[in-house]
């Protein structure tokens, strides 16, 4: 019996694990949410304009840019997307030191998150904007819209539901990758799971952290999908549309 308990929950008494949880869980949840929000915010600060440029800057786009520049941007995005996150985290340690003064802790772990997520966000935004009906763009041009007006008043608003689905995907991906940065000294639920659950074999804490992460993902996904569908003025048959979009979002992800 004790052996089974030990295998399932670890050798530390449950009461002690619960005591640790009471002490740490609140701040771990907060750190996870905080780092996810901050990282998502900055990923969009960089990734949204970049995604817009990837669409509008290409040949035949609303505001074509020099071909070499587009090549450089695409290559940078692809490069960053192809580096596995764990390696990227190590690679940007000097950058974290430079920006936040340290390479450990929750705030420092946000830097690698942003580095990994903004190219991903750029591609998500690009995919959403590419869905804009060509005819609508043509109409806007015929009406005498400037390129900036087309971006702000046509492309982004028309793609809003799709952008929201992308945002949800980005947020959730950043949330789960933030948990991974617990491995190299980031905070949050990830470090709780790794430091207590894995290294000190307090499996109960491991389960609780993971369950909370799963619940958070479910909640954010439902919220995101709900808003995206509620805001979409295009369709009457909303169910099939949202299902299709959610499915497509799932296929993406950074390394």
């Amino acid at each position, binding site marked *: 019996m004790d052996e089974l308990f030990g295998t399932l929950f670890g050798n530390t008494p449950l009461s002690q694990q619960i005591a640790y949880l009471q002490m740490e869980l609140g701040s771990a949840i907060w750190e996870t949410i905080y780092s996810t929000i901050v990282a998502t915010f900055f990923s969009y600060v960089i990734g949204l304009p970049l995604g817009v440029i990837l669409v509008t800057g290409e040949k035949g786009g609303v505001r074509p840019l020099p071909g070499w520049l587009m090549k450089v941007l695409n290559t940078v995005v692809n490069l960053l997307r192809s580096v596995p996150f764990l390696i990227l985290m190590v690679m940007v340690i000097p950058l974290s030191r430079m920006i936040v003064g340290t390479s450990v802790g929750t705030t420092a772990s946000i830097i690698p998150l942003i580095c990994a997520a903004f190219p991903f966000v750029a591609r998500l935004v690009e995919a959403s904007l590419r869905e804009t009906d060509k*005819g609508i763009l043509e109409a806007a041009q015929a009406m005498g819209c400037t390129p900036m007006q087309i971006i702000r008043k046509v492309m982004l608003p028309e793609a809003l539901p799709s952008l929201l689905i992308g945002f949800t995907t980005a947020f959730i991906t950043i949330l789960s990758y933030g948990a991974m940065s617990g491995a190299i000294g980031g905070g949050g639920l990830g470090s709780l799971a790794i430091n207590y659950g894995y290294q000190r074999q307090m499996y109960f804490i491991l389960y609780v952290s993971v369950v909370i992460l799963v619940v958070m993902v479910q909640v954010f996904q439902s919220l995101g999908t709900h808003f995206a569908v509620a805001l979409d003025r295009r369709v009457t048959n909303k169910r099939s549309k949202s299902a299709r979009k959610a499915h497509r979002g799932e296929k993406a992800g950074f390394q």
Partner: protein
Amino acid sequence: MIELKHITKRFPTAEGEFTALNDVSLTIGDGDIFGIVGMSGAGKSTLVRCLNLLERPSEGQVVIDGEDLCAMSTKELTRRRRSISMIFQHFNLLMQRTCLDNICFPMEIAGKKGPEVKKKARELLDIVGLPDKADAYPAQLSGGQKQRIAIARALASDPKILLCDEATSALDPKTTRDILRLIQDINRRLGITVVIITHEMGVIEEICSHVAILDHGVLQETGTVEETFSNPKTEAGRRLVYPDGVVLDQLPTSHVIRIAFNGSSSYEPLIASLAMDCQVKVNILGADTRNVDGKAFGTMLLGLPEDAGERERAIQYIKNQPNVTMEEVHDYHG
């Protein structure tokens, strides 16, 4: 006035350059409803897109009210486009905006603000007959209603010119007629020059005053609708006017005559000289040789052109021929 001067448009393609428009020159008068008709792929859309420089011609000039659009800076052109509205086959409304906000859009981008914008949008909704759809989204409307909203949007910038690219091609015949009426009404009330692109002759017949026939990127003929339709001068024109194309060389025929001549003359020279001496083309509807009183007589049924002047000339010419007699056939059923 819109003047297209020697417009040529080439597209680079995998198999080299493709010439979509070949030296097209055209003048469209103020207040006209001008139709441009042609088969699918003739280059109509390319031509109309050259009018507001959505497509830049490879050669030639687009002159509107004396100003050459091709010579304008991007900024000037952007402003200029606000006085040239366009409606499309697939409406191209902003799907995430209400109908009212769609109509406000052109005013918004021109920097207009305040309550007048909404007020004007509502007036336009009245003009197109959809005052109750202000807060509806385009997805909730039928095709005809969407096109009405698109027309209201097109009018919001007080345009001088309205370009319609296959604007009724996605609509059923009844709705097509309603939309055409609306466009005609707008043309009369507001004096807006309308350019209608279509592959359907019915649309041209319904409302256009002038027509140009485009085929394989070449302007075949242009003129008033009556003139062009009653007597298409080109092969492409005839193909469009008589889509079921009975006989390719068939000319419109309203009067049929039977002529007879004695064996000494033959009919080919007569037909040829009719065409050469009086520029009248006639259809040979039938010919045979008869034996009358032991003499061979040729008879021939001729279809005369619709144009009264031409017909008269032909009749006079034939009457003046020796050895030829002529009678009108009133009950001819081809």
